[in-house]
């Protein structure tokens, strides 16, 4: 099944954090994703774009462990992790932030982040008996993540009583909590006002300076100025991947985005 996919990025190198190799997903007879191979480089912000039904969500679900691939491999720093339980993906350093709100409304902002810290540090379960110092470390780690997204002042407020933009920022803090190797963001600006969108994009740009970020986005324009690499999916297949400039002039991408019914407007 493995074929080198042109152009660029088809071969994994030492700088590769995560690599999809011939990844595919079928739901019954429906092929949602077929034979996608992409390598994601450490420290880069990569955007995955494509019109509706391109397979973005499926690709995202596979990379984050929410769904199991029908074929192909997912390599995290070389090790094949496809088929592992979802909670292990998070523990191995793949954090995701959802398109839909994924907070615990009754818990405070701080508690929401701390649950995530605890989850990632869970393998050291003997810590139950190690008591206070470990607990304090968790609290500090959670507050540090809150500070990174500018929410420390809101730490004791229940998530349900935060503004919409603040809730999205809190979700990013949750994703950052366990100091992940890789941050997956699924349409982080969905449903946001233009001002909130701008703030969120600034936040992502700031976070991406020192992290590997993967961003799934429907609106092509949003990511053009932000991403260093762009992966374009179309009808469940890899259409193109490269720098924003490459993508902008790519004939196939232009045809899909501009020619075919303007489904990727924005």
């Amino acid at each position, binding site marked *: 099944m493995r074929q080198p996919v042109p152009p660029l990025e088809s071969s994994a190198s030492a700088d590769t954090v995560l690599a999809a190799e011939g990844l595919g997903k079928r739901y019954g007879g429906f092929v949602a994703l077929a034979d996608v191979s992409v390598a994601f480089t450490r420290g880069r912000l990569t955007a995955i774009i494509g019109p509706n039904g391109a397979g973005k969500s499926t690709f995202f679900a596979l990379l*984050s462990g*929410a769904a199991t691939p029908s074929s192909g491999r997912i390599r995290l720093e070389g090790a094949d992790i496809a088929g592992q*339980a*979802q*909670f*292990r*993906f*998070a*523990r191995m350093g793949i954090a*995701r932030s*959802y398109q839909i709100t*994924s*907070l*615990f*409304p*009754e*818990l405070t902002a701080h*508690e929401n982040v*701390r*649950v*995530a810290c*605890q*989850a*990632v540090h*869970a393998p050291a379960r003997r810590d*139950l008996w190690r008591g206070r110092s470990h*607990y304090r470390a*968790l609290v500090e780690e959670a507050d540090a993540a809150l500070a990174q997204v500018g929410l420390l002042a809101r730490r004791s407020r229940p998530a349900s009583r935060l503004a919409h933009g603040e809730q999205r920022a809190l979700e990013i803090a*949750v994703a950052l909590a*366990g100091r992940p190797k890789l941050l997956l963001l699924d349409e982080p600006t969905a449903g946001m006002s233009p001002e909130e969108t701008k703030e969120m994009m600034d936040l992502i740009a700031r976070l991406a300076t020192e992290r590997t970020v993967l961003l799934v986005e429907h609106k092509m324009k949003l990511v053009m100025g932000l991403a260093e690499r762009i992966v374009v999916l179309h009808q469940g297949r890899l259409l193109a991947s490269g720098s924003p400039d490459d993508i902008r002039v790519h004939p196939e991408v232009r045809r899909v985005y501009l020619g075919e019914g303007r489904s990727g407007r924005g």
Partner: protein
Amino acid sequence: MEIDLIAVQLFTGVALGAVFVLLSTGLSIIFGMLGVVNFAHGAFYMTGAYAGVFFLALTGNFWLALAAVPLLIGALGLGVERLLIRPLYGRGPDYPLLLTFGLGYVLVEIVRILFGTDGVPFETPALLSGGIDLGGLGYFPAYRLFVIAVTAVILLLLWLLLARTRYGLIIRAGARDPEILSILGIDIARVWLLVFGLGTGLAALAGLLAAPMRSVNPEMGVAVLVEAFVVTVIGGMGSLLGGAIAGMLVGIVVSLTALWMPEMSTISMFALMTLVLLIRPQGLFGRGLAR
């Protein structure tokens, strides 16, 4: 004299309520987390009483039984969750409901085979037999005071666990949305396993504590399961505080009606439940539709 009698009966009600509280807390915590309506809960209660009988016959030490029985039956609960209930997750709530319903019968039958169909006596431990004079109000059985005290301590510990520890945080979050917990990296299957063990351990403790007060027989869990459901519904599904208050309330109402209208005492709790549901359909402290 009349006041004394009421005071004693009130107190009896609180002791009875304490057993209800322990039982319904286990039921409620399992339902709140796993979404499983545990129809075997009464059977675990009964098994707890019989495990106490067994331990007492073996060692003659009530305190040893008190420590060992919740652990033993809690471990049985772990096995049940792991082997019988876990394969049924994701198949709809009626599957575990039917399974635990059947399991309840199996446990009752096993106890009948091992201990016989007749009830067995369970003596009040020597240290706690006799009574204590409480400030001239009346002469209260020491054992019942003990049951109330144990329940209070257990509830306090549970509250501390839920509100103040990192494990409590995971349980509170999991009661709301286990899916998100799983995405965050928590092995939710393991949390469910432990919560089920905790719930069955509490049921066994309730059974053991109730043994000297109520008769020990294979069917003792049947009636008490109904009572535990009534308490859970009155208190509001999934609410620890609600369960505690409702348990006491039901215990007191049942005891007081037994004083004036003995034939109405069983019905009284259903009347109370009806009343509460008419005024607050989600129970006293329930969250309404939010699971």
